């Protein structure tokens, strides 16, 4: 996974909105997504392309339609790689503080 591509894709409110829309109802066409955003069809297409390149959206051809699906795996990987690491440290720092306070008490 390319972390840069994922962070870059997430650093835009329209793209985050597109992910939220797919989270709410997966497997939508460009036309369906376009109807939810105050943006040109071309703009939505461009944002979907960035999301696809980051692996956050996977598209599937179904008949004549191209459906877009949310792929939650890269976000989970970002979580494992970044969030877990720092929250764990925070907790262990608090535990250190507790031990220190209890020792001096």
């Amino acid at each position: 996974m390319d972390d840069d591509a994922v962070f870059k894709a997430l650093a835009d409110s329209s793209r985050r909105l597109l992910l939220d829309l797919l989270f709410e109802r997966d497997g939508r066409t460009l036309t369906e997504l376009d109807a939810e955003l105050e943006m040109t069809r071309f703009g939505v297409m461009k944002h979907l392309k960035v999301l696809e390149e980051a692996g956050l959206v996977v598209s599937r051809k179904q008949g004549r339609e191209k459906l877009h699906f949310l792929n939650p795996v890269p976000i989970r990987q970002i979580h494992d790689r970044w969030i877990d690491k720092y929250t764990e440290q925070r907790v262990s720092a608090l535990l250190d503080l507790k031990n220190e306070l209890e020792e001096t008490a």
Partner: protein
Amino acid sequence: MSTTTRTNTTVQVYQLFIGATPEQIWDAITKPEFTVQYFHGVHIEFTPEERLSRYQDGSEGRQSVAEWRPPHRLVHEWLSDYDPELAAEEPSRVTWEIEAQEDGVSKLTVTHDQLEGAPKTAASVSGEGWMGVLSGLKTLVETGKPLGR
């Protein structure tokens, strides 16, 4: 927007990159000595016709294989026979697609669909369910060790 529950999960797509060849990933999906290490301790054995799950309590489940194209495409029926409530629902379908990328990396896409008649199964495998299994598979294939050990 702060939607926390997914309303439509009748098609679920999970995609990840794994530092291994398609053959290695295929083996990890289809051979019980691998699946037992990441698929909730279940021995899953595939033949071109059938997916046989042997659970820790000695019970078994059998589902049909619809497509068998090693090491790139595997389609099989899914029935959550590990849970009586879920097993009472209609069967759904799981598709595994493995594509070789550059530098010894492969792209694995898992699509779980035809879940219209199995809403409880859909909710149960959604998100953490499949992602837990797939992270375990990735770790096992890349490091030779099960996740978190």
